[in-house]
């Protein structure tokens, strides 16, 4: 995992220095989306296998990760194609529709996550879990 972070970080820094600034940066944006997806899925599977986190969906972090997954998965293809097609009006319409919708969805889920209060943990069947909502 640290290896992926280091490689992606190094590539993004390299791209930031060398790339022209007059077009949409599809490749770094796509890579960022993929990296976020991989990390988020990895996080969710780690939490799934952790017996201490039974009530996963009562945790704000879970909803933040869900928002990131939905936004990154939904915007991956628009970002990949944006560099070469942003000039086309039809593409721009679809891009805006997908991106803006997912942006709103992401922010709504973020708001929901912020509003969730972390429940105090309690002992349950020999394990520590969050209190049932």
């Amino acid at each position, binding site marked *: 995992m640290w290896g992926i972070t280091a490689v992606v970080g190094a590539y993004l820094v390299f791209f930031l220095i060398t790339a022209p600034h007059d077009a949409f940066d599809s490749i770094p944006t796509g890579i960022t989306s993929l990296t976020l*997806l991989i990390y988020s*899925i990895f996080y*969710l599977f780690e939490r*799934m296998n952790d017996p201490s986190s*039974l*009530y*996963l*969906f009562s945790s704000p972090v879970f909803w933040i990760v*869900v928002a990131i*997954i*939905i936004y*990154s*998965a*939904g*915007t*991956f*293809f*628009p970002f990949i*194609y944006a560099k*070469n*097609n942003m000039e*086309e009006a*039809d*593409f721009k*319409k*679809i*891009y805006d*529709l*997908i991106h803006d919708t997912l942006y709103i969805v992401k922010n709504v889920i973020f708001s929901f996550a912020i509003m969730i209060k972390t429940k105090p943990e309690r002992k*349950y*069947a*020999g*394990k520590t*879990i969050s209190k*049932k909502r």
Partner: protein
Amino acid sequence: MILLQVQSTTQPILLFGTMGMLALAIGLIVFIIFHQRRVIRYQSQLQEMEEEQQKILLNASIRWQEEERQRIAADLHDDAGPLLATARLYLNENLVHQDINTQLQSIYNAKQIIDDTIQLIRNISHSLMPPTLKNFGLESAVNDLFQKISGSGVVNASSRFHDYRQRLRPEQELLIFRVIQELVNNILKHSGSSFIHVTQNYNEDKFFIRLHHDGRGITQADFERLNKSALGLGLKNIQSRAKVLQAKIEFERDPSETYFKVTLEVPIEDYEMSN
């Protein structure tokens, strides 16, 4: 509609790719939520079963204590009480008005009765805490018990302790001894076996007691079933004692189906083999 306006080859890929990615992402999230719900339900069931089992064991323990108290009360009331009352009769106030021979006879009789009472109380005390176990350890107590059983001539009981060079903590020894006693008691009552053999070993921080017999026995499935039912008070006592010892108990039948085996596995970390 925007979808109808799509004409280039890029845009269907974009739309379907996005929908596919979103479907995968949402599917993953739904899967995780459902999986979590299933785990929660399983945990709740597990907790309920554990609570039920605890309740059964606690009830068994209380019942066993009550039965033990009743037995001691009955022994004291039915045996010690009349003996002491008889001794009191011999030593009543009229004794001083009687002749010397009658007095001596009465005193002698009272002494005999008091000796019997002492022996009776000693027996009750020994049944609560065997002196051999207290003074000489588990091996001697088991040997003592088995000598008494073999003495009857009906069952051949023997034991062999391979790695018992250091005594365990007294409470551990008493619990292990009670488990062996209960197992042997069950074998004598229900199995109709001709031999009982107990072996002891120590391996990888675990103290093993293995008991073999050739009569009718039970398997692990029977043990668990009886533990959950209202029957089998003795088995529940074994289970609760094993729980206090943090031990595992396993009932099995050997592959040749000639004898049954019970293994008690007690974790003991500070046991020194060199002593």
